């Protein structure tokens, strides 16, 4: 059915890992009717069938139904730590940016650095440029080869047209390859046939404001499209004394998507976006005399563009494949950075059943990244321009050891890249389902994070670091960072309206990046040349607990708690600082609770309280944030929302910048009002 195609179209790791659900004993037998781990509240639902007829047809189409006879992938069958932020969660959150939406998932560290940048990580080792988290938007990697991270200000969409955000905690390396070390974030937009007609949206706030327009139409019986435009203005955040931090920015973005469904077995998608952000970035300029840095404001431009085409094909229930090609462009210009990259990527994967208890998934991929760093006074790359080839293949087999009870998945990804050569990332996962209400899973995996240009190619990178002017020099012999991860998880539905998900992990890291300060060179100014090496290793362990409780038909509560303990050791005294920073880069404890209440058919009240622990690396204190929101739909076509985030806080810091990336701001109390008009 088309539902299966949609899963594959989203290139979801959940699909591939949850292939276990498909491996039933007989072809005609349906998989066990497991309950979804986090059933989404579909909105106001009256008690009797009579009242359902009062819902407008568009709302009826958003109601979630569980159909026992469908071979639907259930998160509860995946031997991995997965959570899904649904379209409903997105609309109720009151958030206006994708990185802020990630706060809703358990175990994700989201720290806002200033109005245009965030540090997002999973299970520790957080950083403004976290190089061990893979982020994908509709199958396209958002990883930049310069720093190895994501420019979050360039990750945006008409949020009402997002279908879901899947967060996989733990290594997704077997399926996603290198740099999916600590987790994978998969952002999926809706098929254009589900976003027909006009949507006009206006949001005003003391933080993010935006105006967006989207139109969805039909090109032919089986082809639909949408086109959108979004203009965004992000106000300055606060500085430590409560004044303006001067980091405001505006962005323009537009794009389209075309979907063709000639039959139930085939889907063709073509989509593209263009965006440009103009930012005022408070920064530190390197100066030759003490204190070697001077506060200044830098003009910044981030520009992006992409074009993606995908074909999903299904042959019966036992076989399907997906072929995808995309081109992606990124340009970041904010002295001392002057960088652009072009990515060309082609990817194919196929799943098919071999016999009754064996399901094989395999794939091939090639990526070419052409990147260019134009030298600036403080930063020089050698070579300034290069083309990097990445060849990858993966294979994964899911075996049913005992029908509906025991499943094992074994697989590996094989890659060859132009920095470290050949990399192998295997994984073994076991799933045990004692009954319909419980499942236990365990996994052991290896994952790597490959070097990026700033690790290997810099011949000059002058930044103020630890109060001293530092020249960070790339290391051509840099090797990959390695992770051996051991995970254990348990999912249960103890009573009908409650679901619980517990995950634990032990991560053993080797060859983590370290900074090795050398002999200072007397100036003036005094400069400490610092080499990059792989001399840190250590462990992290911890887990996440999340639960959902449908208290009444109109009231849903969800909560989560996550724990992270980190111990890193330096190879020698020179790295001690780096190791300590790695340990303290993410909070030990985080917790949140959200309440989603439908007061009447037209009125929602949404509330959330979250606690984020202290970040020792930057001495950022713990904070509690309270968010409240009200959504009112007086008519089918109109939706008004108002709300406040950080209700009890004038402003609080969440993170600090990586050296040379400007100055961090504090996140203020935010009040917003939004209107959505559909017709």
């Amino acid at each position, binding site marked *: 059915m088309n*539902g299966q195609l949609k899963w594959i179209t989203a290139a979801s790791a959940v699909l591939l890992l949850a292939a276990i659900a498909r491996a039933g004993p007989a072809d005609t037998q349906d998989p066990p009717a497991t309950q979804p781990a986090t059933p989404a509240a579909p909105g106001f639902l009256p008690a009797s069938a009579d009242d*359902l007829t009062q819902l407008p*047809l568009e709302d009826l189409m958003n109601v979630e139904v569980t159909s026992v006879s469908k071979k639907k992938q259930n998160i509860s069958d995946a031997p991995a730590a997965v959570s899904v932020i649904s379209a409903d969660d997105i609309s109720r959150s009151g958030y206006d940016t994708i990185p802020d939406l990630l706060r809703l998932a358990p175990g994700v560290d989201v720290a806002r650095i200033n109005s245009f940048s965030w540090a997002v990580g999973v299970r520790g080792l957080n950083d403004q440029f976290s190089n061990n988290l893979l982020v994908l938007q509709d199958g396209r990697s958002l990883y930049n080869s310069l720093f190895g991270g994501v420019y979050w200000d360039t990750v945006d969409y008409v949020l009402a047209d997002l279908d879901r955000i899947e967060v996989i905690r733990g290594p997704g390396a077997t399926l996603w390859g290198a740099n999916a070390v600590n987790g994978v974030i998969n952002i999926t937009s809706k098929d254009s046939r589900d976003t027909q007609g006009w949507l006009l949206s206006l949001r005003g706030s003391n933080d993010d404001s935006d105006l967006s327009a989207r139109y969805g139409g039909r090109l032919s019986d089986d082809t639909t499209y949408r086109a959108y435009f979004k203009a965004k203005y992000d106000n300055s955040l606060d500085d430590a004394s409560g004044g303006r931090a001067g980091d405001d920015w505006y962005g323009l973005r537009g794009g389209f998507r075309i979907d063709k469904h000639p039959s139930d077995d085939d889907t063709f998608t073509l989509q593209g976006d263009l965006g440009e952000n103009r930012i005022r970035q408070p920064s530190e300029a390197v100066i030759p005399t003490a204190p070697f840095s001077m506060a200044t404001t830098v003009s910044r431009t981030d520009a992006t563009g992409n074009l993606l085409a995908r074909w999903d094909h299904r042959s019966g229930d036992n076989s399907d494949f997906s072929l995808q090609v995309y081109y992606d462009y990124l340009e970041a210009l904010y002295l001392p950075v002057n960088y652009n990259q072009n990515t060309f990527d082609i990817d194919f994967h196929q799943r098919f059943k071999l016999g009754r208890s064996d399901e094989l998934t395999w794939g091939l991929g090639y990526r070419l990244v052409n990147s260019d760093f134009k030298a600036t006074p403080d930063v020089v790359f050698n070579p300034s321009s290069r083309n990097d080839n990445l060849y990858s293949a993966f294979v994964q087999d899911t075996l049913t050891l005992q029908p509906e009870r025991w499943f094992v998945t074994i697989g590996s990804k094989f890659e060859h890249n132009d920095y470290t050569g050949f990399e192998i990332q295997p994984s073994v996962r076991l799933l045990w389902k004692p009954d319909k209400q419980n499942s236990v899973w365990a996994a052991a995996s290896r994952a790597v994070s490959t070097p990026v240009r700033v690790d290997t190619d810099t011949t000059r990178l002058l930044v103020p670091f630890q109060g001293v002017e530092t020249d960070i020099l790339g290391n051509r012999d840099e090797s990959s960072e390695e992770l051996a991860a051991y995970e254990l998880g348990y999912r249960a539905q103890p009573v009908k309206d409650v679901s619980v998900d517990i995950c634990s992990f032990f991560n053993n890291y080797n060859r983590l990046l370290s900074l090795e300060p050398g002999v200072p060179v007397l100036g003036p100014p005094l400069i400490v040349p610092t080499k990059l090496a792989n001399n840190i290793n250590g462990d992290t362990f911890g887990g996440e607990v999340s639960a959902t409780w449908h208290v009444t038909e109109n009231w849903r509560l969800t909560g989560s708690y996550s724990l992270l303990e980190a111990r890193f050791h330096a190879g020698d005294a020179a790295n001690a600082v780096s190791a300590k920073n790695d340990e303290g880069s993410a909070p030990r404890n985080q917790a949140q609770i959200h309440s989603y209440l439908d007061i009447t058919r037209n009125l929602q009240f949404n509330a959330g309280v979250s606690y984020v622990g202290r970040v020792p690396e930057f001495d950022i204190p713990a904070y509690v944030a309270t968010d409240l929101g009200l959504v009112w739909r007086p008519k089918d076509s109109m939706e008004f929302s108002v709300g406040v985030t950080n209700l009890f806080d004038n402003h609080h810091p969440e993170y600090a910048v990586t050296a040379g990336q400007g100055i961090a701001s504090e996140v203020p109390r935010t009040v917003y009002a939004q209107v959505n008009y559909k017709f």
Partner: protein
Amino acid sequence: MSCRRRTTWCRTAVTITALMLALGRWCRSDEPSLARVEAAFVYNFTQFVEWPADAFATKDAPFVVAIVGEDPFAGALDQAMAGKQANGHPIVVKHFASADRIESCQLLFVPAAQDAAVGAILANAANRPILTVGQTDAFMRGGGAIRLLVEDGHMRFQLSPDAMDAAKLKASAKLMKLARIYRK
């Protein structure tokens, strides 16, 4: 946590819980079953499709919704239509054991269990102002007009403009916009 933060947390939690209790509803009910959602869709079809005047014997004739064979809705369709009107006529739901027993009707629901007999059923309804609603691919291939299906956890429907034209029925623009157009 510091004293101040703990107080803030407690105060927040109490405030929100109090608000929830004041505004929440306590009665527990079942999740929306597939049947109830399907029944609501069928009701919407009666509202957003136009029947020709000669589809009804008299001005006061009822709008008959006929179900062939065993009721897959377990009464939910009867409940959904109770006391409602369509095209200016009061809706009445009737159950028929088999296709040949169907008297005049305006909407004919063909459950999935009737797949074997779908050819005969649709032949019976052919060229008459009857909106045929079914659940399977065989139903659509046989010339059915609207099919209800579940896709990725949501209810969707296919609509065949050819079948609608053959039955001299007009679907509203809204219905056409939300439908998956079906062409053989």
